[in-house]
């Protein structure tokens, strides 16, 4: 029966197949066009930024090409150092990667993570270091953390002693951090009141106030030594996050304590080892405390699961290869290229007199500080709005229509050109609220408003993706709406919200137009030392370099700046993807 095919079926099948094939080919072509053009662009920029082919000595290879029947010889020039590194680094890495790809899939993932974790950790530690250098001193952070600890302790203690007084606890949750951090009333409040009183011709009105824990610690004559404070402020909190994870996974307190002790020892080792290596002991302590605990927890997990353990070899191959190549090149005396994007570029400011000495440090710090401010300002607002719109807002009747209108307009806001947000920032924050021109906080507010609709929409999508059955089940168990949101909806929606926010931040870091509108200067040579200081941002600086009339800036320096921006962006997006994958796996597991 099945073998009997009517004559028309065959024909119809052929026709539809042709169309389908054509459609598939067109789709493939457009995909590859997009990918190839982006790739070519990136390669061009990277070539300008690193100049990998400009090093002596270079070897010329004659590559025979046969177009038609005539033999042409095309000379290809490759610097010698590139061949050395190709042998020690490129080939082994390629082979290991191929092995993971063909034979051991989980190992590939492990390799990716063990390589990525230290990179992300290094970025985080760079951020911490920049904060120490530019914004806070170690003793300020120490005082702040101690004050926070006191506040958290007060809240926790209250919850223990009087577990049923919810309203009282709300008051404590609000008041305790204020008292601990800023005093009562805060110094700023007194200053403002006294300033107004001074203008009105009255003497200072408020003369007494309760000093905050933070102020008391800062004023105390017995501050610990710098490295002890660093261990306490940086290493301890990281350990406090990761040691319990390990303890829970291994179900042993000792494992957690061991991890904590180990991390502290490695960090403290910096006092001895760092000077020998020629780096500051501060740098060592920060880098070690941010890198060691997460890596240790991850590696422990891999070893315990015994899955993809071969992947742990990947970083060793990479580092060993790079080291071997470098030693070999030094021994033989081959020249290395002189890339635009080097350590000096990351740590110097713009220089008018020398393109070689020019750097991106102040805009880099400005961008990081802007991102930090955006997260603090926008994340709670955006997520709060999304929760309201999805969980609380009325969906029927006149009010429901109104909510729909608001949702449509949030969608419209996401499409408003960024220049308009810049104008809004100029008019509202600088002209009306008299904030300083070109300050980090103004840039953060303008760009933050720009990505706010995107954050709201992506958070809404994430909350909507939580199945209604889960909510109903929660209600069925007698949970209130607040309990349902807190314990059922938000935990499930959190990875989605996080991913959406990180992607929106990726957009924020590249925005230029609003920064131009709020008067962010073209040239800033000092990294901002506070959120109200004038600063620059990476795209603003890149825009300026595109206009310098020395071509070295327009090509070399500009390319290095673009690569720096892209690397930060790619790492952020990579983190978003990893987080999403991780949470999704946990959900299905």
């Amino acid at each position, binding site marked *: 029966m099945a073998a009997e095919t009517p004559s028309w079926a065959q024909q119809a099948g052929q026709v539809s197949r042709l169309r389908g094939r054509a459609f598939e080919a067109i789709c493939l072509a457009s995909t590859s066009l997009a990918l190839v053009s982006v790739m070519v662009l990136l390669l061009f920029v990277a070539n300008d930024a690193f100049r990998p082919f400009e090093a002596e000595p270079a070897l010329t290879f004659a590559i025979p090409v046969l177009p038609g029947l005539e033999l042409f010889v095309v000379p290809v020039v490759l610097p010698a150092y590139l061949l050395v590194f190709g042998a020690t680094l490129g080939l082994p890495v390629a082979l290991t990667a191929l092995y993971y790809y063909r034979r051991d899939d989980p190992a590939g993932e492990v390799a990716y993570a063990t390589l990525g974790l230290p990179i992300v950790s290094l970025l985080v530690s760079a951020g911490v270091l920049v904060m120490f250098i530019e914004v806070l001193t170690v003793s300020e952070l120490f005082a702040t953390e101690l004050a926070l600890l006191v506040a958290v302790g007060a809240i926790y203690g209250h919850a223990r002693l009087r577990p049923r007084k919810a309203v009282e606890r709300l008051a404590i*949750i609000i008041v305790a951090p204020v008292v601990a951090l*800023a005093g009562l009333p805060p110094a700023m409040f007194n200053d403002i009141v006294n300033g107004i009183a001074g203008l009105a011709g009255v003497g200072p009105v408020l003369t007494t106030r309760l000093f905050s824990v933070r102020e008391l610690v800062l004023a105390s004559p017995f501050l610990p030594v710098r490295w002890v404070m660093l261990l306490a402020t940086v290493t301890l909190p990281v350990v406090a996050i990761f040691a319990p994870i390990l303890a*829970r996974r291994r179900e042993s307190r000792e494992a957690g304590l061991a991890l904590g002790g180990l991390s502290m020892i490695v960090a403290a080792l910096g006092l001895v080892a760092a000077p020998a290596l020629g780096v500051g002991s501060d740098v060592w302590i920060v880098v070690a405390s941010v890198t060691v605990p997460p890596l240790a927890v991850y590696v422990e997990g891999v070893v315990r699961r015994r899955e993809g353990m071969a992947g742990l070899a990947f970083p060793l191959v990479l580092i060993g290869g790079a080291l071997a190549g470098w030693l070999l090149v030094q021994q033989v005396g081959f020249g290395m290229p002189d890339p635009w994007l080097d350590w000096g570029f990351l740590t110097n400011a713009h220089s008018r007199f020398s393109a070689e000495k020019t750097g991106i440090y102040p805009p880099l710090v400005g961008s990081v500080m802007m991102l930090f401010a955006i997260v603090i300002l926008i994340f709670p607002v955006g997520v709060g709005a999304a929760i309201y719109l999805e969980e609380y807002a009325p969906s029927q009747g006149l009010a429901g229509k109104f909510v729909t209108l608001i949702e449509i307009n949030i969608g419209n806001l996401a499409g408003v050109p960024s220049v308009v947000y810049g104008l809004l920032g100029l008019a509202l924050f600088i002209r009306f609220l*008299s904030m300083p021109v070109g300050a980090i906080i103004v840039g953060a507010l303008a760009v933050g408003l720009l990505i706010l609709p995107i954050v709201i929409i992506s958070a809404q999508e994430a909350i909507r993706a939580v199945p209604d059955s889960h909510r109903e089940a929660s209600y069925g168990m007698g949970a209130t709406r607040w309990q349902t949101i807190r314990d059922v909806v938000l935990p499930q929606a959190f990875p989605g919200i996080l991913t959406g926010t990180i992607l929106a931040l990726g957009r924020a870091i590249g925005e230029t137009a609003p920064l131009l509108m709020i008067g962010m200067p073209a040239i*800033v*040579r000092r990294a901002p030392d*506070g959120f109200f*200081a*004038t600063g620059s941002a990476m795209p603003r600086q890149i825009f300026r370099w595109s206009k310098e*009339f020395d071509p070295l800036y327009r090509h070399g320096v500009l390319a290095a700046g673009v690569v720096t921006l892209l690397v930060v962006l790619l790492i952020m997006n990579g983190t978003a993807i990893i987080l999403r994958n991780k949470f999704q796996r946990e959900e299905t597991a």
Partner: protein
Amino acid sequence: MSRKDAGDVTRRKFLIGSGAAGAITLAGCTSTGDGNGNGNGNGNGNGNGNGNGNGNGNGDSGLSGEITIKGSSTVFPVSDAMAELFMEEHEGVNVTVDPTGSGGGFKNWFCPGDAEINGASRPIKDSETEQCSGNDVEPVEFQIAGDALTMAVNNDADWVDCMTPDELSQIWREDGATNWSEIRDEFPDQEIPLFGPAETSGTYDWFNENIVGEDYRHTARHQPTEDDETIVQGIRDNTNAMGYFGYAYYKSNSEQVKALEIDGGQGCTEPSLANAKDGSYPMARPLFIYVAKDALQREEVYEFMKFYLEKAETDIVQEIGYVPSSTDLRDENLAKLDEAAGK
């Protein structure tokens, strides 16, 4: 069950932590806000420098604060060089430089009190002085350098090497010549694409007033831009094109375009610093910076201005591509500065 509890606690901790982090930022704001409250008394009070630093290296001089320079893109290279050299000596001072065009700088930043210094490639206009005084900003003028405004054509435009100011006016006035052959009969019968600065630029104002002439208005037919690089590109890519900009931009792009000699009645003279200095080049013009008088009361602004005016007489300016100020002009400037600062 225990797993759930653990998660619960961490989430609450997270919430408290993020709230506290917000409080830290607020606390950070307060400590920066009450730094040095030296508002320069211009009513809106947003000019108070908050670069109070927090103990990390105020350098050897002990000066600190923020200085904002806006204004002409022609003066920008000079101001930028001065800023860099000054900041090498004074670690605590942050001088930021931003090219906004002379008029744009006066109107949007300097006169509202948001910038201490404004560069200008033409003298300040009466309307701008009025706007400034409306905000209690009193501009003090200093001539810091000279420029040879350069009219450039494409390298392949072999028919023209020298023109008179009157011919330029015919091309650049409103409803003027649009074709090369309208200027001289031997010129080709081709349209002239024009590239020039935007209306916010002082270069535009100077050219409009002194070359186009008071009886005419500047054409709107040209491609206006704040960016001299765009002008050079436009001329380079178009055989018949013409455009003008400051000499410094020509100096670093002299292979890409051809500068016209100008005949002001005493024969053709090429744009050069020497010719601008001795006055034989008809399109030589002075460059200015303006400083708000009140801001001079701040030590760092005064010191920076003093540095600027002293260094404006040196080779730094020449290397950038402008005529440095003479020793007489420098001394005159310094005396004027001390008088304005009340020293």
